Protein backbone atom coordinates (compact mmCIF):
# COMPACT_ATOMS: atom_id res chain seq x y z
CA UNK A 1 0.00 0.00 0.00
CA UNK A 2 1.46 3.29 -0.95
CA UNK A 3 1.64 6.24 1.42
CA UNK A 4 -0.82 8.22 -0.64
CA UNK A 5 -3.43 5.53 -0.33
CA UNK A 6 -3.02 5.46 3.43
CA UNK A 7 -3.29 9.20 3.65
CA UNK A 8 -6.51 9.30 1.74
CA UNK A 9 -7.82 6.37 3.77
CA UNK A 10 -7.23 8.08 7.05
CA UNK A 11 -8.31 11.60 6.28
CA UNK A 12 -11.63 12.74 7.53
CA UNK A 13 -14.39 11.83 5.19
CA UNK A 14 -16.30 14.77 3.92
CA UNK A 15 -19.71 14.61 2.39
CA UNK A 16 -22.52 12.26 3.12
CA UNK A 17 -21.35 10.28 6.18
CA UNK A 18 -20.07 13.43 7.79
CA UNK A 19 -23.37 15.23 7.31
CA UNK A 20 -25.25 12.18 8.49
CA UNK A 21 -23.16 11.94 11.66
CA UNK A 22 -23.58 15.58 12.63
CA UNK A 23 -27.22 15.44 11.55
CA UNK A 24 -28.01 12.71 14.06
CA UNK A 25 -26.00 14.50 16.72
CA UNK A 26 -28.04 17.62 16.02
CA UNK A 27 -31.33 15.72 16.32
CA UNK A 28 -30.33 14.32 19.71
CA UNK A 29 -29.15 17.73 20.86
CA UNK A 30 -32.47 19.20 19.77
CA UNK A 31 -34.34 16.62 21.85
CA UNK A 32 -32.23 17.50 24.87
CA UNK A 33 -32.74 21.18 24.18
CA UNK A 34 -36.52 20.70 24.38
CA UNK A 35 -36.12 20.20 28.13
CA UNK A 36 -34.33 23.54 28.39
CA UNK A 37 -36.88 25.22 26.15
CA UNK A 38 -39.66 23.89 28.38
CA UNK A 39 -38.20 25.75 31.34
CA UNK A 40 -37.76 28.87 29.28
CA UNK A 41 -41.30 28.58 27.96
CA UNK A 42 -42.70 28.10 31.47
CA UNK A 43 -40.90 31.17 32.74
CA UNK A 44 -41.80 33.33 29.75
CA UNK A 45 -45.45 32.24 29.75
CA UNK A 46 -45.84 32.81 33.47
CA UNK A 47 -43.97 36.10 33.48
CA UNK A 48 -45.66 37.70 30.48
CA UNK A 49 -49.17 37.37 31.88
CA UNK A 50 -48.12 37.82 35.48
CA UNK A 51 -46.48 41.13 34.61
CA UNK A 52 -49.69 42.35 33.03
CA UNK A 53 -51.46 41.32 36.20
CA UNK A 54 -49.00 43.13 38.46
CA UNK A 55 -49.32 46.28 36.40
CA UNK A 56 -53.00 46.30 37.38
CA UNK A 57 -52.78 44.90 40.87
CA UNK A 58 -49.87 46.12 43.00
CA UNK A 59 -47.61 43.40 44.35
CA UNK A 60 -48.24 44.50 47.94
CA UNK A 61 -51.98 44.17 47.52
CA UNK A 62 -51.49 40.72 46.00
CA UNK A 63 -49.22 39.51 48.77
CA UNK A 64 -50.95 41.16 51.75
CA UNK A 65 -54.61 41.32 50.73
CA UNK A 66 -56.95 39.15 52.79
CA UNK A 67 -59.77 38.84 50.29
CA UNK A 68 -59.68 36.58 47.24
CA UNK A 69 -62.60 37.02 44.84
CA UNK A 70 -61.57 36.90 41.21
CA UNK A 71 -65.13 36.56 39.98
CA UNK A 72 -66.77 39.95 39.62
CA UNK A 73 -70.10 38.91 41.09
CA UNK A 74 -71.31 41.63 43.38
CA UNK A 75 -68.40 43.41 44.97
CA UNK A 76 -65.92 43.27 42.08
CA UNK A 77 -62.39 41.87 41.91
CA UNK A 78 -60.16 41.42 44.85
CA UNK A 79 -56.83 39.66 44.62
CA UNK A 80 -55.36 39.09 48.06
CA UNK A 81 -53.38 35.85 48.25
CA UNK A 82 -53.38 35.53 52.05
CA UNK A 83 -56.47 33.30 52.35
CA UNK A 84 -55.01 31.03 49.66
CA UNK A 85 -51.70 30.88 51.50
CA UNK A 86 -53.52 29.98 54.71
CA UNK A 87 -55.37 27.22 52.89
CA UNK A 88 -52.16 25.92 51.31
CA UNK A 89 -50.35 26.06 54.64
CA UNK A 90 -53.14 24.20 56.39
CA UNK A 91 -53.06 21.39 53.89
CA UNK A 92 -49.27 21.24 53.69
CA UNK A 93 -48.66 21.27 57.43
CA UNK A 94 -51.31 18.64 58.12
CA UNK A 95 -50.04 16.43 55.33
CA UNK A 96 -46.50 16.86 56.65
CA UNK A 97 -47.67 15.70 60.09
CA UNK A 98 -48.48 12.37 58.47
CA UNK A 99 -45.92 11.98 55.72
CA UNK A 100 -42.79 13.07 57.56
CA UNK A 101 -42.92 10.84 60.66
CA UNK A 102 -44.45 7.88 58.84
CA UNK A 103 -42.02 8.24 55.95
CA UNK A 104 -39.02 8.52 58.26
CA UNK A 105 -40.03 5.50 60.31
CA UNK A 106 -40.62 3.59 57.07
CA UNK A 107 -37.17 4.53 55.87
CA UNK A 108 -35.61 3.41 59.16
CA UNK A 109 -37.49 0.14 58.99
CA UNK A 110 -36.49 -0.51 55.38
CA UNK A 111 -32.87 0.44 55.87
CA UNK A 112 -32.19 -0.97 59.35
CA UNK A 113 -34.68 -3.69 60.21
CA UNK A 114 -36.20 -5.21 57.09
CA UNK A 115 -34.70 -8.32 55.53
CA UNK A 116 -33.80 -7.98 51.88
CA UNK A 117 -36.86 -10.07 50.95
CA UNK A 118 -39.24 -7.82 52.86
CA UNK A 119 -37.56 -4.79 51.35
CA UNK A 120 -37.95 -6.22 47.83
CA UNK A 121 -41.71 -6.51 48.42
CA UNK A 122 -42.33 -3.35 50.43
CA UNK A 123 -40.47 -0.85 48.29
CA UNK A 124 -42.42 -1.34 45.05
CA UNK A 125 -45.66 -1.55 47.05
CA UNK A 126 -44.91 1.80 48.66
CA UNK A 127 -44.31 3.31 45.23
CA UNK A 128 -47.93 2.44 44.41
CA UNK A 129 -48.97 5.08 46.95
CA UNK A 130 -47.38 7.75 44.78
CA UNK A 131 -48.70 6.19 41.56
CA UNK A 132 -52.43 6.39 42.25
CA UNK A 133 -53.88 9.32 40.26
CA UNK A 134 -54.52 12.28 42.53
CA UNK A 135 -58.09 12.72 41.35
CA UNK A 136 -58.74 9.21 42.67
CA UNK A 137 -57.30 10.18 46.06
CA UNK A 138 -59.55 13.23 46.00
CA UNK A 139 -62.55 11.02 45.32
CA UNK A 140 -61.56 8.68 48.15
CA UNK A 141 -61.26 11.62 50.51
CA UNK A 142 -64.62 13.03 49.52
CA UNK A 143 -66.79 9.92 49.51
CA UNK A 144 -65.10 7.54 51.94
CA UNK A 145 -62.75 9.36 54.31
CA UNK A 146 -64.89 12.38 55.15
CA UNK A 147 -68.05 10.35 55.93
CA UNK A 148 -65.98 7.90 57.96
CA UNK A 149 -64.46 10.73 59.99
CA UNK A 150 -67.85 12.38 60.41
CA UNK A 151 -69.31 9.14 61.69
CA UNK A 152 -66.53 8.52 64.18
CA UNK A 153 -64.18 11.21 65.48
CA UNK A 154 -65.18 14.55 64.02
CA UNK A 155 -68.96 14.92 63.71
CA UNK A 156 -68.51 18.66 63.07
CA UNK A 157 -66.56 18.00 59.84
CA UNK A 158 -67.93 19.71 56.73
CA UNK A 159 -68.64 17.82 53.50
CA UNK A 160 -65.71 19.66 51.97
CA UNK A 161 -62.85 20.01 54.40
CA UNK A 162 -59.10 20.38 54.55
CA UNK A 163 -58.57 17.45 56.89
CA UNK A 164 -59.47 14.56 54.57
CA UNK A 165 -57.62 16.17 51.69
CA UNK A 166 -54.53 16.57 53.87
CA UNK A 167 -54.73 12.95 55.04
CA UNK A 168 -54.69 11.76 51.44
CA UNK A 169 -51.83 14.08 50.48
CA UNK A 170 -49.96 12.77 53.50
CA UNK A 171 -50.41 9.16 52.38
CA UNK A 172 -49.45 10.04 48.82
CA UNK A 173 -46.17 11.70 49.85
CA UNK A 174 -45.03 8.91 52.22
CA UNK A 175 -42.99 7.13 49.51
CA UNK A 176 -41.31 10.39 48.56
CA UNK A 177 -39.97 10.79 52.10
CA UNK A 178 -39.24 7.11 52.61
CA UNK A 179 -37.37 6.39 49.39
CA UNK A 180 -35.03 9.38 49.51
CA UNK A 181 -34.45 9.03 53.24
CA UNK A 182 -33.77 5.34 52.84
CA UNK A 183 -31.21 6.06 50.13
CA UNK A 184 -29.49 8.44 52.54
CA UNK A 185 -29.58 5.90 55.36
CA UNK A 186 -28.26 3.10 53.17
CA UNK A 187 -25.39 5.38 52.21
CA UNK A 188 -24.26 5.57 55.83
CA UNK A 189 -21.14 3.39 55.94
CA UNK A 190 -21.43 0.19 57.92
CA UNK A 191 -18.33 1.07 59.87
CA UNK A 192 -20.30 3.74 61.73
CA UNK A 193 -22.92 1.17 62.71
CA UNK A 194 -20.19 -1.25 63.78
CA UNK A 195 -18.68 1.46 65.95
CA UNK A 196 -22.05 1.95 67.63
CA UNK A 197 -22.48 -1.77 68.26
CA UNK A 198 -18.90 -1.91 69.50
CA UNK A 199 -19.84 0.55 72.21
CA UNK A 200 -22.61 -1.75 73.35
CA UNK A 201 -25.47 0.12 71.73
CA UNK A 202 -28.66 -1.74 70.84
CA UNK A 203 -30.05 -1.74 67.34
CA UNK A 204 -32.58 0.90 68.36
CA UNK A 205 -29.81 3.14 69.66
CA UNK A 206 -27.69 2.64 66.58
CA UNK A 207 -30.65 3.48 64.34
CA UNK A 208 -31.72 6.58 66.18
CA UNK A 209 -28.44 7.97 67.41
CA UNK A 210 -26.00 6.89 64.67
CA UNK A 211 -27.82 6.30 61.38
CA UNK A 212 -30.43 9.05 61.56
CA UNK A 213 -28.00 11.85 62.54
CA UNK A 214 -25.51 10.67 59.92
CA UNK A 215 -28.14 10.79 57.17
CA UNK A 216 -29.88 13.90 58.43
CA UNK A 217 -29.18 16.03 55.37
CA UNK A 218 -30.71 13.38 53.10
CA UNK A 219 -33.75 13.09 55.36
CA UNK A 220 -34.25 16.85 55.44
CA UNK A 221 -33.91 17.07 51.68
CA UNK A 222 -36.63 14.44 51.34
CA UNK A 223 -38.84 16.46 53.69
CA UNK A 224 -38.45 19.56 51.57
CA UNK A 225 -39.30 17.66 48.39
CA UNK A 226 -42.39 16.12 49.96
CA UNK A 227 -43.57 19.49 51.27
CA UNK A 228 -42.98 21.04 47.88
CA UNK A 229 -45.08 18.29 46.33
CA UNK A 230 -47.86 18.91 48.84
CA UNK A 231 -47.84 22.63 48.07
CA UNK A 232 -48.29 21.96 44.37
CA UNK A 233 -50.90 19.23 44.82
CA UNK A 234 -54.11 20.14 43.07
CA UNK A 235 -56.73 17.50 42.39
CA UNK A 236 -57.03 16.05 45.88
CA UNK A 237 -57.74 19.50 47.27
CA UNK A 238 -60.04 20.52 44.44
CA UNK A 239 -62.23 17.48 44.86
CA UNK A 240 -62.19 17.07 48.63
CA UNK A 241 -61.62 20.50 50.07
CA UNK A 242 -64.00 22.51 47.96
CA UNK A 243 -63.37 26.08 46.99
CA UNK A 244 -64.28 28.60 49.62
CA UNK A 245 -61.61 31.25 49.96
CA UNK A 246 -62.26 32.01 53.60
CA UNK A 247 -60.21 34.00 56.04
CA UNK A 248 -60.43 32.10 59.29
CA UNK A 249 -61.48 34.20 62.28
CA UNK A 250 -58.48 35.53 64.15
CA UNK A 251 -58.91 34.75 67.82
CA UNK A 252 -57.04 36.20 70.70
CA UNK A 253 -55.61 34.49 73.72
CA UNK A 254 -56.04 35.98 77.15
CA UNK A 255 -52.79 37.86 76.72
CA UNK A 256 -53.91 39.35 73.47
CA UNK A 257 -51.74 37.20 71.19
CA UNK A 258 -53.66 36.53 68.00
CA UNK A 259 -53.98 32.92 66.80
CA UNK A 260 -56.00 30.84 64.42
CA UNK A 261 -57.89 27.87 65.78
CA UNK A 262 -56.78 24.81 63.72
CA UNK A 263 -60.36 23.54 63.77
CA UNK A 264 -61.52 26.63 61.92
CA UNK A 265 -59.32 25.83 58.95
CA UNK A 266 -59.18 22.04 59.15
CA UNK A 267 -62.82 21.15 59.42
CA UNK A 268 -64.09 23.65 56.90
CA UNK A 269 -63.85 24.09 53.20
CA UNK A 270 -60.97 26.26 52.09
CA UNK A 271 -58.98 27.23 49.07
CA UNK A 272 -55.37 26.70 48.14
CA UNK A 273 -53.33 28.49 45.51
CA UNK A 274 -53.79 25.55 43.16
CA UNK A 275 -57.54 25.31 43.69
CA UNK A 276 -58.06 28.97 42.87
CA UNK A 277 -56.23 28.44 39.59
CA UNK A 278 -58.50 25.51 38.72
CA UNK A 279 -61.54 27.52 39.68
CA UNK A 280 -60.61 30.40 37.38
CA UNK A 281 -59.73 28.01 34.57
CA UNK A 282 -63.22 26.53 34.86
CA UNK A 283 -64.61 29.92 33.87
CA UNK A 284 -62.67 32.03 31.47
CA UNK A 285 -59.72 31.01 29.32
CA UNK A 286 -59.69 33.34 26.35
CA UNK A 287 -57.13 35.63 27.90
CA UNK A 288 -56.83 39.34 28.36
CA UNK A 289 -58.93 39.53 31.49
CA UNK A 290 -57.68 40.18 34.97
CA UNK A 291 -58.80 36.81 36.44
CA UNK A 292 -57.00 35.07 33.55
CA UNK A 293 -53.81 36.96 34.30
CA UNK A 294 -54.18 36.29 38.01
CA UNK A 295 -53.84 32.56 37.29
CA UNK A 296 -50.41 33.21 35.91
CA UNK A 297 -49.48 35.33 38.90
CA UNK A 298 -50.50 32.45 41.14
CA UNK A 299 -48.67 30.00 38.89
CA UNK A 300 -45.56 32.13 39.09
CA UNK A 301 -45.82 32.19 42.88
CA UNK A 302 -46.15 28.43 42.95
CA UNK A 303 -43.30 27.95 40.48
CA UNK A 304 -40.95 30.17 42.46
CA UNK A 305 -41.79 28.46 45.76
CA UNK A 306 -41.30 24.96 44.41
CA UNK A 307 -38.15 25.96 42.54
CA UNK A 308 -36.59 27.45 45.67
CA UNK A 309 -37.51 24.36 47.68
CA UNK A 310 -36.11 22.04 45.04
CA UNK A 311 -32.83 23.92 44.83
CA UNK A 312 -32.65 23.99 48.61
CA UNK A 313 -33.25 20.27 48.87
CA UNK A 314 -30.61 19.68 46.23
CA UNK A 315 -28.04 21.76 48.07
CA UNK A 316 -28.73 19.93 51.32
CA UNK A 317 -28.70 16.54 49.62
CA UNK A 318 -25.32 17.29 48.11
CA UNK A 319 -23.90 17.43 51.61
CA UNK A 320 -24.61 13.81 52.33
CA UNK A 321 -23.51 12.73 48.88
CA UNK A 322 -20.21 14.43 49.50
CA UNK A 323 -19.87 13.02 53.01
CA UNK A 324 -19.69 9.40 51.84
Amino acid at each position, binding site marked *: *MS*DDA*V*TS*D*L*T*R*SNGFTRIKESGYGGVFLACAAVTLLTTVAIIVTLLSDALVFFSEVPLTEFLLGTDWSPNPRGRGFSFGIVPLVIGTLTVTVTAAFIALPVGTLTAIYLSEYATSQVRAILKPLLEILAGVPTVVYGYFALVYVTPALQATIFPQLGTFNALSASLMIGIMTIPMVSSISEDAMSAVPDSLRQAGYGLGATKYEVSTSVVVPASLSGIISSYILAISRAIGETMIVVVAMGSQANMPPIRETLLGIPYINPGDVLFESGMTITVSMIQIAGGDLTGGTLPYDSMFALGLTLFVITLIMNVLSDLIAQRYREAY
Partner: protein
Amino acid sequence: MSQNESTIDSESESLITTDVQPDTTAESASSATTIVETEQLNVYYGDDQALDDVSIAIPENQVTALIGPSGCGKSTFLRCLNRMNDLIDIARIDGTVTLRGIDIYDDAVDPVALRRKIGMVFQKPNPFPKSIYDNVAYGLKVQGKEITDERIEEALRSAALWDEVKDQLDQSGLELSGGQQQRLCIARAIAPDPDIVLMDEPTSALDPVAASKIEDLIDELVEDYTVIIVTHNMQQAARISDQTAVFLTGGELVEYDDTTTIFENPADDRVEDYITGKFG
Protein backbone atom coordinates in the same frame (compact mmCIF):
# COMPACT_ATOMS: atom_id res chain seq x y z
CA MET B 1 19.14 -14.82 38.15
CA SER B 2 20.21 -11.62 39.69
CA GLN B 3 20.74 -11.59 43.42
CA ASN B 4 21.04 -7.85 43.29
CA GLU B 5 18.38 -6.45 45.65
CA SER B 6 18.01 -3.03 44.16
CA THR B 7 15.48 -0.66 45.61
CA ILE B 8 14.75 1.67 42.78
CA ASP B 9 15.20 5.30 43.54
CA SER B 10 14.44 8.03 41.13
CA GLU B 11 18.07 8.88 40.38
CA SER B 12 19.10 5.49 39.06
CA GLU B 13 15.83 5.28 37.17
CA SER B 14 16.46 8.36 35.09
CA LEU B 15 20.07 7.28 34.47
CA ILE B 16 19.16 3.93 33.09
CA THR B 17 16.32 5.22 30.94
CA THR B 18 18.51 7.66 29.15
CA ASP B 19 21.12 5.12 28.20
CA VAL B 20 18.75 2.33 27.20
CA GLN B 21 16.24 4.00 24.97
CA PRO B 22 18.22 5.22 22.00
CA ASP B 23 19.89 1.94 21.10
CA THR B 24 16.77 -0.24 21.49
CA THR B 25 14.75 1.90 19.13
CA ALA B 26 17.46 1.79 16.57
CA GLU B 27 17.95 -1.95 16.84
CA SER B 28 14.26 -2.88 16.43
CA ALA B 29 13.75 -0.58 13.55
CA SER B 30 16.56 -2.24 11.68
CA SER B 31 15.19 -5.78 11.94
CA ALA B 32 11.98 -5.30 9.90
CA THR B 33 9.81 -2.65 8.25
CA THR B 34 8.35 -0.39 10.89
CA ILE B 35 4.59 -0.07 10.77
CA VAL B 36 3.84 1.96 13.89
CA GLU B 37 6.20 4.36 15.51
CA THR B 38 5.78 6.66 18.50
CA GLU B 39 7.99 9.51 19.56
CA GLN B 40 7.98 11.13 22.97
CA LEU B 41 4.46 9.97 23.56
CA ASN B 42 2.96 11.35 26.76
CA VAL B 43 -0.58 10.70 27.95
CA TYR B 44 -2.29 12.41 30.83
CA TYR B 45 -5.62 11.59 32.45
CA GLY B 46 -6.44 14.90 34.04
CA ASP B 47 -3.42 15.58 36.20
CA ASP B 48 -2.14 12.00 36.24
CA GLN B 49 0.52 11.05 33.76
CA ALA B 50 -0.18 7.63 32.27
CA LEU B 51 2.62 7.47 29.68
CA ASP B 52 5.98 9.12 30.01
CA ASP B 53 7.97 9.93 26.85
CA VAL B 54 7.45 6.59 25.15
CA SER B 55 9.37 6.16 21.91
CA ILE B 56 9.08 2.85 20.14
CA ALA B 57 9.08 1.42 16.63
CA ILE B 58 6.93 -1.62 16.05
CA PRO B 59 7.77 -3.92 13.12
CA GLU B 60 5.27 -5.20 10.60
CA ASN B 61 3.99 -8.79 10.61
CA GLN B 62 5.47 -9.61 13.95
CA VAL B 63 4.05 -10.12 17.40
CA THR B 64 5.04 -7.34 19.74
CA ALA B 65 4.25 -7.92 23.39
CA LEU B 66 3.83 -5.14 25.91
CA ILE B 67 4.46 -6.32 29.45
CA GLY B 68 4.70 -4.72 32.83
CA PRO B 69 2.97 -4.51 36.20
CA SER B 70 -0.64 -3.38 36.32
CA GLY B 71 -1.13 0.33 36.05
CA CYS B 72 2.10 0.78 34.13
CA GLY B 73 0.39 2.29 31.10
CA LYS B 74 0.63 -0.61 28.66
CA SER B 75 -3.09 -0.61 27.96
CA THR B 76 -3.05 3.15 27.66
CA PHE B 77 -0.30 2.83 25.10
CA LEU B 78 -2.30 0.28 23.13
CA ARG B 79 -5.32 2.56 23.13
CA CYS B 80 -3.22 5.42 21.77
CA LEU B 81 -2.54 3.42 18.63
CA ASN B 82 -6.18 3.37 17.51
CA ARG B 83 -7.13 6.58 19.30
CA MET B 84 -9.56 4.88 21.65
CA ASN B 85 -8.33 7.35 24.24
CA ASP B 86 -10.19 10.01 22.27
CA LEU B 87 -13.36 8.63 23.81
CA ILE B 88 -12.17 9.62 27.27
CA ASP B 89 -12.83 13.29 27.85
CA ILE B 90 -10.02 13.94 30.28
CA ALA B 91 -7.31 12.16 28.26
CA ARG B 92 -4.65 14.42 26.79
CA ILE B 93 -2.07 13.13 24.32
CA ASP B 94 1.25 14.69 23.57
CA GLY B 95 3.91 13.51 21.08
CA THR B 96 3.57 11.73 17.77
CA VAL B 97 2.27 8.35 16.68
CA THR B 98 2.77 7.41 13.07
CA LEU B 99 1.18 4.62 11.10
CA ARG B 100 3.30 3.90 8.00
CA GLY B 101 4.78 7.35 8.39
CA ILE B 102 1.50 9.22 8.77
CA ASP B 103 0.86 11.11 11.98
CA ILE B 104 -2.42 9.64 13.21
CA TYR B 105 -3.03 12.53 15.59
CA ASP B 106 -2.93 14.96 12.71
CA ASP B 107 -6.05 17.10 12.51
CA ALA B 108 -6.83 15.73 9.08
CA VAL B 109 -6.97 12.15 10.32
CA ASP B 110 -10.37 10.76 11.19
CA PRO B 111 -10.14 8.46 14.21
CA VAL B 112 -13.03 6.38 12.86
CA ALA B 113 -11.15 5.81 9.58
CA LEU B 114 -8.05 4.95 11.60
CA ARG B 115 -9.86 2.34 13.69
CA ARG B 116 -11.06 0.72 10.49
CA LYS B 117 -7.45 -0.16 9.72
CA ILE B 118 -6.74 -1.42 13.22
CA GLY B 119 -8.65 -4.27 14.84
CA MET B 120 -8.87 -4.59 18.60
CA VAL B 121 -9.55 -7.45 20.99
CA PHE B 122 -10.36 -6.69 24.61
CA GLN B 123 -9.51 -8.26 27.94
CA LYS B 124 -13.03 -9.47 28.61
CA PRO B 125 -14.71 -11.09 25.60
CA ASN B 126 -17.33 -8.58 24.48
CA PRO B 127 -19.38 -10.09 21.67
CA PHE B 128 -22.47 -8.05 20.81
CA PRO B 129 -25.80 -9.54 21.86
CA LYS B 130 -26.40 -10.49 18.24
CA SER B 131 -26.03 -13.70 16.28
CA ILE B 132 -22.57 -15.10 15.60
CA TYR B 133 -22.95 -14.19 11.96
CA ASP B 134 -23.93 -10.60 12.74
CA ASN B 135 -21.06 -10.26 15.18
CA VAL B 136 -18.52 -11.12 12.52
CA ALA B 137 -20.34 -9.05 9.94
CA TYR B 138 -20.47 -6.01 12.24
CA GLY B 139 -17.20 -4.46 11.06
CA LEU B 140 -18.07 -5.01 7.41
CA LYS B 141 -21.48 -3.47 8.00
CA VAL B 142 -20.34 -0.31 9.76
CA GLN B 143 -17.45 0.14 7.37
CA GLY B 144 -19.73 -0.13 4.39
CA LYS B 145 -17.96 -3.21 3.02
CA GLU B 146 -19.78 -5.99 1.25
CA ILE B 147 -21.01 -8.74 3.56
CA THR B 148 -20.64 -12.16 1.99
CA ASP B 149 -20.91 -15.58 3.55
CA GLU B 150 -17.40 -16.35 2.26
CA ARG B 151 -15.85 -13.50 4.17
CA ILE B 152 -17.64 -14.47 7.35
CA GLU B 153 -16.46 -18.05 6.94
CA GLU B 154 -12.91 -16.93 6.21
CA ALA B 155 -12.79 -14.76 9.32
CA LEU B 156 -14.21 -17.51 11.49
CA ARG B 157 -11.71 -20.01 10.01
CA SER B 158 -8.85 -17.61 10.66
CA ALA B 159 -10.04 -17.37 14.24
CA ALA B 160 -10.15 -21.19 14.46
CA LEU B 161 -13.83 -21.07 15.32
CA TRP B 162 -15.51 -22.13 12.09
CA ASP B 163 -15.70 -25.85 12.80
CA GLU B 164 -17.29 -25.26 16.19
CA VAL B 165 -19.98 -22.80 15.11
CA LYS B 166 -20.65 -23.42 11.42
CA ASP B 167 -24.03 -24.99 12.21
CA GLN B 168 -25.18 -22.34 14.64
CA LEU B 169 -24.36 -19.05 12.97
CA ASP B 170 -27.82 -17.74 13.86
CA GLN B 171 -27.33 -18.32 17.57
CA SER B 172 -26.46 -15.48 19.88
CA GLY B 173 -22.77 -14.90 20.36
CA LEU B 174 -23.41 -14.76 24.09
CA GLU B 175 -24.29 -18.45 24.16
CA LEU B 176 -20.71 -19.47 23.37
CA SER B 177 -18.14 -20.36 26.03
CA GLY B 178 -15.70 -17.72 27.18
CA GLY B 179 -12.87 -18.96 24.99
CA GLN B 180 -15.16 -19.25 21.97
CA GLN B 181 -16.45 -15.75 22.65
CA GLN B 182 -12.92 -14.39 22.61
CA ARG B 183 -12.19 -16.16 19.33
CA LEU B 184 -15.43 -14.73 17.99
CA CYS B 185 -14.15 -11.30 18.98
CA ILE B 186 -10.92 -12.03 17.11
CA ALA B 187 -12.92 -13.11 14.06
CA ARG B 188 -14.91 -9.90 14.37
CA ALA B 189 -11.72 -7.85 14.55
CA ILE B 190 -10.08 -9.44 11.51
CA ALA B 191 -13.16 -9.75 9.28
CA PRO B 192 -12.71 -6.28 7.74
CA ASP B 193 -9.06 -7.19 7.09
CA PRO B 194 -7.22 -4.58 9.21
CA ASP B 195 -3.48 -3.88 9.07
CA ILE B 196 -2.89 -4.32 12.75
CA VAL B 197 -4.62 -6.30 15.48
CA LEU B 198 -4.35 -4.88 18.98
CA MET B 199 -4.97 -7.29 21.84
CA ASP B 200 -5.47 -6.08 25.39
CA GLU B 201 -4.75 -9.06 27.68
CA PRO B 202 -6.94 -11.28 25.51
CA THR B 203 -6.45 -14.42 27.59
CA SER B 204 -6.57 -13.09 31.13
CA ALA B 205 -10.26 -13.83 31.54
CA LEU B 206 -9.97 -17.35 30.08
CA ASP B 207 -9.07 -20.78 31.41
CA PRO B 208 -5.65 -22.22 30.45
CA VAL B 209 -6.96 -24.46 27.67
CA ALA B 210 -8.88 -21.66 26.00
CA ALA B 211 -5.90 -19.37 26.51
CA SER B 212 -3.52 -21.74 24.75
CA LYS B 213 -5.90 -21.93 21.77
CA ILE B 214 -5.76 -18.15 21.49
CA GLU B 215 -1.97 -18.28 21.70
CA ASP B 216 -1.82 -20.78 18.85
CA LEU B 217 -4.14 -18.54 16.91
CA ILE B 218 -1.90 -15.52 17.38
CA ASP B 219 0.94 -17.52 15.90
CA GLU B 220 -1.08 -17.99 12.74
CA LEU B 221 -2.49 -14.49 12.62
CA VAL B 222 0.95 -12.96 12.46
CA GLU B 223 1.41 -14.26 8.93
CA ASP B 224 -1.16 -11.77 7.71
CA TYR B 225 -1.34 -9.15 10.42
CA THR B 226 0.82 -7.17 12.75
CA VAL B 227 -0.14 -8.16 16.28
CA ILE B 228 0.47 -5.94 19.28
CA ILE B 229 -0.51 -7.67 22.48
CA VAL B 230 -0.65 -6.46 26.06
CA THR B 231 -0.14 -9.20 28.56
CA HIS B 232 0.65 -9.48 32.23
CA ASN B 233 1.71 -13.05 31.72
CA MET B 234 5.45 -13.12 31.07
CA GLN B 235 5.53 -16.76 29.97
CA GLN B 236 2.93 -15.89 27.38
CA ALA B 237 4.99 -12.98 26.11
CA ALA B 238 8.05 -15.22 25.93
CA ARG B 239 6.13 -17.91 24.05
CA ILE B 240 4.37 -15.90 21.41
CA SER B 241 6.13 -12.60 20.80
CA ASP B 242 8.98 -11.57 18.56
CA GLN B 243 9.54 -8.22 20.26
CA THR B 244 8.89 -7.32 23.85
CA ALA B 245 8.50 -3.90 25.41
CA VAL B 246 8.66 -3.63 29.17
CA PHE B 247 6.74 -0.83 30.87
CA LEU B 248 7.17 -0.02 34.51
CA THR B 249 5.08 2.04 36.90
CA GLY B 250 4.66 5.63 35.87
CA GLY B 251 4.12 4.86 32.21
CA GLU B 252 7.74 4.63 31.36
CA LEU B 253 9.07 2.31 28.65
CA VAL B 254 12.10 0.77 30.29
CA GLU B 255 13.35 -1.61 27.67
CA TYR B 256 12.33 -2.73 24.21
CA ASP B 257 14.12 -5.45 22.32
CA ASP B 258 13.92 -8.91 20.78
CA THR B 259 11.96 -11.14 23.09
CA THR B 260 14.91 -13.48 23.53
CA THR B 261 17.16 -10.63 24.54
CA ILE B 262 14.63 -9.27 27.02
CA PHE B 263 14.14 -12.60 28.68
CA GLU B 264 17.68 -13.92 28.59
CA ASN B 265 19.88 -10.86 28.74
CA PRO B 266 18.02 -7.72 29.70
CA ALA B 267 20.06 -4.57 29.76
CA ASP B 268 18.12 -3.00 32.59
CA ASP B 269 18.30 -4.29 36.14
CA ARG B 270 14.69 -3.42 36.81
CA VAL B 271 13.59 -5.48 33.81
CA GLU B 272 15.56 -8.39 35.13
CA ASP B 273 13.98 -7.92 38.54
CA TYR B 274 10.55 -7.75 37.02
CA ILE B 275 11.06 -10.82 34.88
CA THR B 276 12.41 -12.84 37.73
CA GLY B 277 9.50 -11.81 39.85
CA LYS B 278 11.16 -9.46 42.28
CA PHE B 279 9.19 -6.47 41.23
CA GLY B 280 5.67 -5.73 40.26
